[in-house]
């Protein structure tokens, strides 16, 4: 089946098998930041943005992305460097394998209208689906807090 997808700002047309997962298609297209940690839609490692919304690419067929905009961390490098800097300063990136999916979800979260007023609990709930086995999550929260504070500062 033929699909046309705007992938990281570029329009591509491709012929895909009807049962091909978006995850596999993205890796075929060289978006190697997208990782897989489970087969059961439980880990969040494969999170990408589809029409701006965080989506598990392992739970979506490539054909469903037809006429949609798909963004991976390859397409958000500046944002990744900005938020990732806070991760790095907290030592919260560790093995890094969960980072792209997690960061994609954080970058979606930052667009939530009232995110600057969120409690720690709200942040954790939003990101609950992103598992990490290395960090114990504490560094993630510290990095997010600093990142949000810096952004808010920048808005003033």
């Amino acid at each position, binding site marked *: 089946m033929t699909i046309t997808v705007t992938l990281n700002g570029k329009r591509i047309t491709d012929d895909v098998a009807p049962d091909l997962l978006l995850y596999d298609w993205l890796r075929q297209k060289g978006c190697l930041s997208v*990782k897989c940690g489970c087969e059961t839609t439980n*880990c969040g490692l494969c999170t990408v943005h589809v029409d701006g919304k965080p989506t598990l690419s392992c739970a979506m067929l490539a054909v469903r992305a037809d006429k949609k905009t798909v963004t991976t*961390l390859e397409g958000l490098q500046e944002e990744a*460097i900005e938020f990732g800097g806070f991760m790095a300063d907290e*030592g919260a990136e*560790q*093995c890094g394998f969960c980072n792209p999916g997690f960061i994609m979800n954080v970058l979606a979260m930052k667009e939530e209208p009232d995110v600057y007023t969120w409690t720690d609990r709200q942040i954790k709930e939003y990101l609950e689906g992103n598992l990490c086995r290395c*960090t114990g999550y*504490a*560094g993630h929260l510290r990095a997010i807090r600093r990142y949000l504070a810096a952004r808010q500062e920048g808005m003033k």
Partner: protein
Amino acid sequence: MKVVGKAYRKKDAMQLVTGKPVYTDDLKPNGCLVVKLLRSPHAHALVKEIKKDIALKVPGIVCILGWEDVPRTRFTLAGQTYPELSPYDHAILDQRLRCVGDPVAIVAGETEEAVDRAMKLIKVTYEELEPVLDYTKALDHPVVVHPEDDYQVLVPSINCDQKRNLITTEHFEHGDVEAQFKECTHIVEHTYHVRAVSQAMMETFRAYCYHDLYGRLVCVSSTQVPFHVRRVLSNALKLKKSDIRVIKPRIGGGFGAKQSVVCEMFPAVVTHLTGRPAEIIYTREESMTNGSPRHEMSVTVKLGCGDDGILKAMSMYTLSNGGAYAEHSPTTVGLSGHKGLSLYGTPKAYRFDYDVVYSNTMGTGAYRGYGATQGEYAVECAISELAEQAGFDPITFRKMNMVREGQIMPAYYGELCQSNALDRCLDRVCELIGWDEKYPAKRMENGKIRAVGVALAMQGSSISQVDEAAVELRLNEDGNYHMLVGSADMGTGSDTTLAQVAAEALECELDDIAVFGVDTDASPYDSGSYASSTAYLTGRAAYETAMELRKKMIHAAAGCLGIDEADVLFDGKTFSDESGLHSMTLRELGVHSLGGFSGRMLSASVSRVSPVSPPPFMAGAVEIEVDPETGKVEILQYKAAVDCGTVLNPNIARGQTEGGLVQGIGMTLFEDVQFTDKGKLRNNSFMQYKIPTRLDCGDLEVVFESSYEPEGPYGAKSIGEVVINTPAPALTNAIYNATGLRFYDLPIKAEQIALGLLHRDER
């Protein structure tokens, strides 16, 4: 200190957070064959026939290998220094299948679809055999898990008896334990059970292989033990080590899982036989069912003290389940007692016995903590129970008995404890959590109960006189350095901390040292990243190497300047004499060394074996809230104080601690391991095997109370493993304080607490 102790970013941090392709599967060459394994549905069976003719006709299938098609060799997958203590009981493929999921056939093809189709078309005839699934009955069971003749034990002192399903057995006694127990007025004895929990690193097992331009076998692997991978492949395929090259890129977590060479032999044998590049990626399910989980253990602890609350004797018997294969079985078990019992220095007598047995359950391996986790969980629960029986609060009781700096530790190989801030660690967590106000428990207005619990922990730092580590440092012509390492940074930041140690010794900036690793063709030998060895042992090698290079550089500079070596001052940038009349920069020396002037490239490599294994210590205190209606335990806060000696990089050390705590919380409250009566693992995905999410772990706070370890680099000890050991006992103790229920089995699930409370109230 200028560089050591600073919270630098990891050298690879920005590559990781921007999602660069740095992991095994990101790097594979084009045209890599897809390798998958057809696995046994039976816990114990013989392969009678593998019919593969129809499957071979699937377009794109390149080979299907059964046990008769692969080299018949026996080896161990355990990543350990040669001669390995783990018996040689593994084959690439075997006719005898010893657990559900044991590989029956290796299928390689051009595409995943082709391989999946072929797998369905292979017809295997099995002769089903009776399995021995209950490890508590495995010793001397009529069913023998490893009856084969080519089974090999390299180190006879493990006392292995293959025909009895006995992997190892041991008796250790110091002092007269029975006589001491007779004098005790208070005794506690219980058996504690820990399951075969899974490391659940986010990147599952994976590797790819190809032949290089010389026709040698190259294996790129997500491993903690590149040099041991090389040995295992050389054993499995009967290749010379010089004909194998192993490369470790970035790896997505290990936690001990990747201290076993779980999957590398499958693509290796495909490449070996077909000449084609080949890759295997374990599914999450395979990683759970046929990985290298923690050893299931039943730990029976007996402790006794007098009315004065001073321990007189401690004894432990550990029965450990090696499962189908004995990887790490002879070694993990030792830590349960040698570390668990050594937390306390007052007893006059110690006894530690153990048996490790085979059974037809999944093979086991190394998981952070490596047996110490199981043993310390048992000891730390029993200590709290004994304290109560003897009329002491758990903090006072621990302080009266804990191991102290300057003591000889009889159960810890008789080593002298040269650095120990455990007392300060305990004080600190009590203060942070508000122990005095909160102990033992408080009922809240909403009916929930808040309670606190505490536990101590220790580990080692490298395996003394076994692990070996080297680094190599080279001076470049522009006055900066290359450091080649053989230890595996697995997200632990060791590439960075090792460079910090070298930079401190060379008085340069961290950025002046580029780190390269790991490639067995280029890196100096390192036994690998396990047994809490990297910061301590490889760190010490980095220090020694830097000092050696310093000496060489000063010698060379003295020659250039025409002055006496003893008169050369070096501040990291310039060599000069005291007057400053003679001087040259490091850059000038670099140019001199490589510019054809001296014929002396400046480099150094020093390897290091440690005579001792200095324990890091820690204390953990948790505050929980229990809902007596549902039994749900919510962690409010967890306070941890760690003595890892000098902290090389506080960010990295803190991250290690937080991660270890949450893994410990997982095994205590969530991570369940259940088998069907046919020996099939039920909890084989993240759906059934629940690891903690960010909502499950409360607020963590980590502080450091440093001692100074004279054997370590700048006083450092290890940190990677000790951090997983406190949650199980601290939480078990807190749950007791909240509910009056004592649990002796992990995980402690909400329904067990709710039911326990119901029964208690009925009584």
